């Protein structure tokens, strides 16, 4: 099974390196790691997908909080989240095959974004499964190149992912002890 975590980090030079170095050091295997800007200019957002062979999300979260620049971590594995991956797939195609590819693409709500004499580029956005589905169908035609962004994720509505370590950061208020 895969784990999917969202981390908000300070938008400063070297933060990606710190996260990557931590994962290597702790022997966590990253499946994909996507970093991008957010609605706030000083905060970047990472979506981290990993194989949960020897780790669980709690352990990953606790380790991420050791990094001073990590502001918030949520585990969105098996949560009501929208997750999306984007792929560009260059398929070998003579003019007579273009229609077939266009057909397949439209079934998957993918688009042809470039047409060259011997190939086309298909752009698809969706869940991992959906992309895998299209890739399998295109493979017999000859995939020349493929690139994927890795997953990005966002919780639906007002729900949030799971936060394990109470008090490890300011986002989860811990219950104060009554005197």
């Amino acid at each position: 099974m895969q784990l999917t975590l969202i981390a908000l980090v300070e938008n400063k030079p070297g933060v990606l390196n710190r996260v990557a170095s931590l994962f290597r050091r702790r022997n966590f295997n990253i499946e994909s790691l996507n970093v991008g800007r957010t609605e706030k200019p000083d905060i970047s957002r990472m979506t981290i997908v990993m194989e949960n062979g020897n780790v669980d999300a709690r352990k990953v979260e606790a380790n991420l909080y050791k990094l001073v620049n990590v502001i918030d971590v949520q585990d969105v594995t098996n949560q009501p989240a929208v997750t999306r991956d984007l792929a560009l797939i260059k398929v070998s195609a003579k003019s007579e095959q273009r229609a077939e590819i266009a057909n397949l693409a439209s079934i998957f709500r993918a688009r042809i974004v470039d047409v060259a004499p011997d190939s086309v580029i298909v752009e698809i956005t969706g869940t991992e499964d959906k992309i895998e589905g299209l890739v399998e169908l295109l493979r017999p035609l000859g995939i020349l190149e493929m690139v994927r962004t890795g997953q990005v994720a966002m919780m639906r509505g007002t729900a949030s992912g799971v936060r394990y370590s109470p008090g490890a950061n300011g986002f989860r208020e811990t219950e104060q002890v009554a005197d």
Partner: protein
Amino acid sequence: MTKKTGAEILWECLVREGVEVVFGLPGGAIMPVYDAMLYYPVHHVLVRHEQGAAHMADGYSRASGKVGVALTTSGPGATNLVTGIATAIMDSSPIVCITGQVHAHLIGGDAFQETDVTGITLPVTKHNFLVTSADEVAEVVREAFFIARSGRPGPVLIDICKNAQIEEVDFIYPEEVSLPGYQPPTHAPLEDLKRAAELIEQAERPVILAGHGVTMSDAVDSLRVFATKTQTPVAMTLLGLGAFPASDPLSLGMMGMHGEAYCNLAIQNADLLLAFGMRFDDRVTANLRTYAPRARKIHIEIDPSEVHKNVEVDVALIGDLNTVLIDLIPLVDEYDHEEWRAEIEDWRSESQARDILTWPDDGKLYTAHVIRNIWEATGGDAILTTGVGQHQMWSAQYYCFEKPNRLITSGGAGTMGFGLPATIGAWFAKPDHEIWLVDGDGSFQMTQAELSTAIQEGANIKIAIMNNNFLGMVRQWQEFFFESRYAGTPLIGPDFVKIAEAHGIPARRVTETTEVLPAIEFARQTDGPVLIDFRVEKEEAVYPMVPTGADLDKMIRRPIRKQPTAAD
């Protein structure tokens, strides 16, 4: 507004952080900082190798509870710090290392003495900074000290480009630090505290595991109150020694690979372990699969990543140890645990029968005896620093620590060469306290160059070398596990007395048991550094010993010695 150079701002901020002494060695990329230093009330200690600067800052920090500071140039000056930084992070020691860096516009071009120091130290620092302009200096210094000493303390490095030292900018001291991602936990949730109190109530055979966190969070008094109220025996890690008085009947002494046998037996037979600011290191748990098999576990820890890391626990109380204990104590009742304590007493007396201290004087010089003599002579209250090896374990076993912050030793990293520089650092923190370095002949030679620092600074430290002509601990492993094939462990040392004398340091050699006490007295009566070369037994072994991977209670024990009879 007054303009100041980055170098001046650096010193201004260091002074405001309460820095009175820095340990360092200059070079091209840090010269503006050195030049500005002369105008600030900070004492500079010139080290002989930058590794020494980091260990001195560390020793200073461990003895004072304050942040220690090391200062070096770029490139090799900075890389020489790395062992010291790695040592500090393993033992959660708050130090700030300041390194010079080439001009910001030269970075990435392999300029003279350019090294990617923030890259190199990333895995061994709590956090690090690269400062490329003077207007970042004040904020970075403020944040660096805050990060180093708060939460789970640790080393922080500031790599400061030469242009950032020279540029003049307006100096605004940042009163507040803003670190949105850094908020160390304090209190544990009440529901978790209540759950812990339940487990404590159900326990019949509880044991407290006291670690370095007890002294780091100033929880020594709370620990005593908790242990006394619940009559729970207290086992300590190497860095936890001193957290609970060794003479208290509830003390079980040190746990783990070279821990007391009765202590390890108590842990293995416990039904509840209360881990206070410790991290279940492999040197204390031995085989994890068979570790304390019947015990439920409560873990009080400030660093969430340590919880469930090596040992799954039943209740995790994440927060500052002292705060959590103060919250927890009113929730627990008084207990007696008389049977359990009696059972442990039986194990304790069995252990004492094997103790080398019970051996009659056979004319041989045993390290354990020498350390016990130092303990007696110093009233058990000296600050004791060590190298790494057998002498370190014997120090832990035979210098019975009554008070916190008395043992200064490299635990997690086990860094040979830590001893002498850490001792000098400790002396700057506590110049009026009696300070003894118990070092190995191997460890001592790694940073022996700092003898000249000690004499230059007039450090009043007493150096006792346990000279066994071996890398003794490795030799012991070879004896036990490699059929006594002593590969690379015999050590022909120099004449340490002459080495000391060449530095102007009074020194003596001790080869007979009768010379031990007079030599200790000589050291105590002489002002300034003194060195004693104790020619101890070469092939003694530290007992008990849990071989790596074995169960914690499967210890190699010291053979029982027959008492000599009249016929002998």
